[in-house]
């Protein structure tokens, strides 16, 4: 599970994260809402071990993400806004390559089944990624994490720029992963998608968590009003 306790992070005097505390448990999806520069990506980068907090602790499965980054990364999957894969390799080859980097050697059929599980159409498996849509690349990105049997999924603006159908497929996939026990943290601007997918929602403003609520507690309209109020004040 994800556990952040009183974490702060500054860049050249500018506070990116201020005393942030949040937890995400197994099978739960937490959505982080916030404007550009609110600290969503910094939070994810701290969890990935690419940034160390100035103070406080950032842990996954009770392991410190900055000091034990290598161990933590063994069970973390990451899906950025743009999954940039090697354009000259096919979807299967990209997945195979990334799996081998993680020390996993799957037969071709299994690789294809991962891709299919993550929603990539069979006919696309052997096509070069240069011809993929953003949604298709996203699916390969999820397949990479899935094949790694990631327990924690960190998603940075995953639905940005996706068409409604692709976005819908992504939501379904995330729900499926959560139902299988994955811990998911998703940073986004998309209030409606976050409300639809996530169990819990946190609103970040200037690096601080200003509001935390259960998705079920609010309607989409209410969430939008709440979010806008926070942003304005």
């Amino acid at each position: 599970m994800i556990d952040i306790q009183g974490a702060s992070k500054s860049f050249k005097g500018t506070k990116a994260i201020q005393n942030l505390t949040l937890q995400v448990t197994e099978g739960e999806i937490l959505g982080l809402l916030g404007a550009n520069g609110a600290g969503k990506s910094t939070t994810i980068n701290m969890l990935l071990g690419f940034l160390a907090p100035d103070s406080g602790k950032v842990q996954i499965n009770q392991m410190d993400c900055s000091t034990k980054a290598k161990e933590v990364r063994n069970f973390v999957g990451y899906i950025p806004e743009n999954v940039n894969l090697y354009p000259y390799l096919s979807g299967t080859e990209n997945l195979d390559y990334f799996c081998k980097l993680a020390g996993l050697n799957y037969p071709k059929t299994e690789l294809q089944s991962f891709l299919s599980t993550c929603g990539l159409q069979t006919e696309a498996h052997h096509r070069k990624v240069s011809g993929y849509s953003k949604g298709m690349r996203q699916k390969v990105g999820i397949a990479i994490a899935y094949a790694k049997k990631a327990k924690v999924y960190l998603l940075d603006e995953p639905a940005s720029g996706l068409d409604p159908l692709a976005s819908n497929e992504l939501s379904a996939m995330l729900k499926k992963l959560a139902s299988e026990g994955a811990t998911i943290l998703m940073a986004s601007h998309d209030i409606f998608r976050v409300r639809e997918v996530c169990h819990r929602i946190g609103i970040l403003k200037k690096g601080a968590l200003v509001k935390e609520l259960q998705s079920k507690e609010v309607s989409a309209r209410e969430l939008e009003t709440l979010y806008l109020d926070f942003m304005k004040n």
Partner: protein
Amino acid sequence: MMMWQIIKNEWHFLARNRVLLGISFGFVGILFLTVYLGNLQTQEQAQRYQTAQTHLRQQWENIEEMNPHSAAHYGTYVFKPTCLLSGLDEGVNSITGNVLRVEGHVQNEIVHSEASQMQAISKFGKLKSALLLQYIIPLLLIFLAFQSIYGEKQGGRLKLLLLQGTHLTQILVAKTLSVCLYGIGLLGLTISVYVLLNLNSINTDILGRTALLFLSYSFYYFILSGLTVFFSARWENTNLALTSMLGIWIVWTIFLPNVLMSSVERWHPLPSREAFKTAMKEDRSKGLDGHNPADKRSKALEEKVLKEYGADSLAQLPINFDGIVMQEDEEYGNKVWDEHFGNLRKALAEQKQTYQLGGLINPFISLQNTSMGFAGNDNLHHQEFLVQVENYRRVFIKTLNDKHAYGGSRTGDWSWKAGNDFFRSVADFEYSPPVLSSVFSHYVFDIILLLFWGLLTAILLIFGTKKMSIL
């Protein structure tokens, strides 16, 4: 294992990128062409050398009868032979002369260089493999490597790679190796084709030289690839990585070798030809004059020889005293040549040693040194050739003087002539190129410097990227 995966992936990229594939095939084609043309030129030159050498030997062996000292003036000529590896790296060959006159009384200089026979064509030499391997392929490696890390960073792929458990150092080293291996592949192909084309002439010495040549280039390719990958990782901008490396390429390969070589010649100056000749002439005049019986030193020698043979006058001597005087004159001259040409060689060696130090700031200098050195076409090999010719000259002239002195003639009998059998018996010059073991020590420093640079690059890749931004 992980590194191997990354290297394999990079090669996938190469194999599937039509432009790069086209460039690679183009390069392989040009490299084969350079090997073929280089080989052809070496053969043509060797053929011409052989014809000229045979022609000269025939002239010598056709001497029906001649006074031995006249024969010393008639002399002979030695042509500089081509080295088998000239086809790969010609070194100083087109600059140095090709024809060396071997005669009595004087140590001549080699003249008639190829460069002096026509107007300027190429500042960087002929289209030899060395031109491509030293100048062009490094540029290609820079172009292949400058985006390697920045490209991954830009697409966010670097994070994905790291998340898969790969260490940043592994990525950097693997990227470096994949680019460097591309260069080494081209190098290997070039050398293999060369070896195949010359299979009949290859011996262990040539193979050893080729292997060391291969090693030097491999180090250099690693250094360049590593530095480019390092810049690609460190700089915030891919253009900056490219322009930095282009700058380094210009400074290393075009600018610094010129500046350093010119400076080295200032630090260890060589005498002007006039000063050199005048000083030798002066020292030479202190010895006896073989052509002047009235010379004081000749008189002293005369007395010594008369005493030795128990004779009262030269006419009583059973030998030809003129031949002895001539040889004495030669021996003295040899001391003078040894001193002056020795000083020249010393200054040249000092220049070379100082230039080699330039490898501390520019590994290209070390590469150039080892390349032409192991190819057997640097100044060291050239000087060795000159020394061997001079040694031959001394034996050649002594043989003639001894014949003049002890061949049956009497003092003052300049009309006495040795027969054709004698001239046929005088051995022809045979050049034995220095073996690798005897020249290796001269290049150890260059190899150490290349290793040092390789190590520095590895340190930069491992430690210089610790604080690199992944984001």
